[in-house]
């Protein structure tokens, strides 16, 4: 309904300026179509096509239709491929682990990011931008360098352990490298701003007189947060969760550098298929397509829930 007014006004101006503008308008849209086509649609189509081709042993593909990659992902037919098909758990396990890791990372980012964003949004105007700047400062440094630095910081004889031992909090180093916790630390550190920024944007827009109204009507602080503030900032929270969950799911730097082989995630699996001569391009493409489908599914569920909320 709200969209009707602007549409009408642009409609009027288009009529006024005449149809001579239309070919020009189409030409001006060309760069946008080019970017979407060349950088978005084409690569995905390419992946889709590659995932249905046959692998070449030294990397690359043979142009021959095959469903072998998807078959390899889901089914175990024995070493020579002649046994009755059983479900292949290796990759499903990797995917499952990735999903769980990404979910945990999202929850941690939310638990830390929401209070952070709330804190920043409730600061006076003059200091807000400084706080936002501080949150984003580390992200001017390359992700790889940050992840390697994290590895350096938390290794057994690294600064963190040395300091903790010096202070006397621990007697022996805490072993973090190559554990799930290290991966979580890496993911959390990589993606926290993606939670803080959208949540901040929605808390900042929140009309705090609603919180006063709730307090006026006998609601405790906790109830006010739960029943008045959270419903109002929900879009920001959902956006933040998607922005953290999606890249966490496909992340390969943090799991690779901090998690080791035991904590292998989808991102590393795909990366390996395209690296060096041991790779399998169609299989990597198939994994990517499966990952993409999962991400799209999550986004669709979100869009559906948004549409339902909007209809109310």
């Amino acid at each position, binding site marked *: 309904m709200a969209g009707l007014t602007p549409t009408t006004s642009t409609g009027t101006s288009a009529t006024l300026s005449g149809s001579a503008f239309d070919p020009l308008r189409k030409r001006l849209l060309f760069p946008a179509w080019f970017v979407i086509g060349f950088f978005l649609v084409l690569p995905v189509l390419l992946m889709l096509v590659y995932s249905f081709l046959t692998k070449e042993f030294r990397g690359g593909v043979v142009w021959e239709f095959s469903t072998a990659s998807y078959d390899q992902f889901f089914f175990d037919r024995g070493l020579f491929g002649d046994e009755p098909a059983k479900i292949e758990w290796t990759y499903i396990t990797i995917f499952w682990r990735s999903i769980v890791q990404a979910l945990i990372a999202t929850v941690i980012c939310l638990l830390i990011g929401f209070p952070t964003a709330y804190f920043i949004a409730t600061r006076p105007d003059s200091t807000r931008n400084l706080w936002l700047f501080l949150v984003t400062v580390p992200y001017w440094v390359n992700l790889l360098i940050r992840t390697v630095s994290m590895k350096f910081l938390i290794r057994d004889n690294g600064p963190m352990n040395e300091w903790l031992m010096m202070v006397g909090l621990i007697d022996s180093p805490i072993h973090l490298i190559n554990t799930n916790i290290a991966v979580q630390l890496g993911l959390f550190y990589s993606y926290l701003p993606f939670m803080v920024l959208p949540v901040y944007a929605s808390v900042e827009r929140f009309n705090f*007189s*609603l919180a*006063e109204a709730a*307090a*006026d*009507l*006998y*609601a*405790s602080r906790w109830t006010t947060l739960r029943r008045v503030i959270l419903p109002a900032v929900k879009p920001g929270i959902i956006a933040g969760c998607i922005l953290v969950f999606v890249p966490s799911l496909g992340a390969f730097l943090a799991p690779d550098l901090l998690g080791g082989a035991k904590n292998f995630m989808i991102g590393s699996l795909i990366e390996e298929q395209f690296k060096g001569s041991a790779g399998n391009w169609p299989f990597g493409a198939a994994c990517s397509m499966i990952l993409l489908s999962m991400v799209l599914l999550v986004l669709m569920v979100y869009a559906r829930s948004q549409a339902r909320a909007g209809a109310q």
Partner: protein
Amino acid sequence: MNQNNQQIAIDLNRISKNYGEVTALHNVSGSIYDNEFFTLLGPSGCGKTTLLRIIAGFETVTAGDVLLYGESIAELPANKRPVNTVFQQYSLFPHMTVAENVSFGLQMQARNRTRDRSFIKQRTAQMLELVQLESFAKRKPAQLSGGQQQRVALARALAPEPRVLLLDEPLSALDLKLRQSMRVELKQIQQQTGITFVFVTHDQEEALTMSDRIAVMSEGQVQQTGDAHSIYTNPSNLFVADFIGETNKLDGVLLENNMGNGTCRLKDGTVLSCTARSDIATDANGTLCIRPERLAITSVDDPAAVLSGAIERFHFLGTDTQVVARTSTSEELLVRVQNTAANQLGLQAGDRVGLVVDAASATFLDQ
């Protein structure tokens, strides 16, 4: 009114509020009686909203105390005070329906008290009926007009049966017609429910028509408290005289003050009888205030005329005509004349006229 026997609902005891260097309220004291429609009236920035927010518990006092039916509430958080607020912008919860908004306070109370579901449902329905919105229970606030949202805000604040209802300029966002009908309705609801209303407004007409008593505020202080009639006819200082209604202000000196009945001399030498607060000393410089409707136009040589002037222009205002005249010392005088058939003035700009005023309508103020 026999207010000495009435119970005091809210007692404000020497309240001050500073924001850093800025003083929002300075030593404000006063009592609001039980079952009273009490209005805080003043221009924006006078501290009236701050005072309301202190009573509600959204602001803390820098000094002083607030008593609610004899008990100090200055330390109580907003959600523990048995007062509810109707906010200026309504502040309805946008994600809740009208019924959910109205029942919110009741649900919160239910956690501490024995209030069951059926009671909440019944009370919500009763409140929606009170504000005539029964058929809108399932709508969201965004689907309502401003006036309807206003009623929901009122129902929501009344539902938990507060001991005092605070209203922060609740009518300012409505258009004139709606504002006028809501005035009547608010007053009726106050009388029906018997709840003490504390109403904040900058609109003097609103204050005069609705209130049992009015506190006129300016610069963080209460200038005068009283019923509409006494504030209008006996302003205690120049600010009140100027802020409430229109007034003619003429500089002068008080020549004599005999227990409130005095005479004063204006700049042009005119001497006339007036009223003055008995504590104003003779020879005090001050201002003589006369309401435009208390001046009557007569011919220049009428012996009853105490003032004179030349007519400058006329403003036709429907029921009245405002005549603007200028005295010999070039002070402006406003005269209100009712547009009755008998009052065909037959005057023109430039005519010299005499003006009649009785002593009771001319008030001498020293500040």
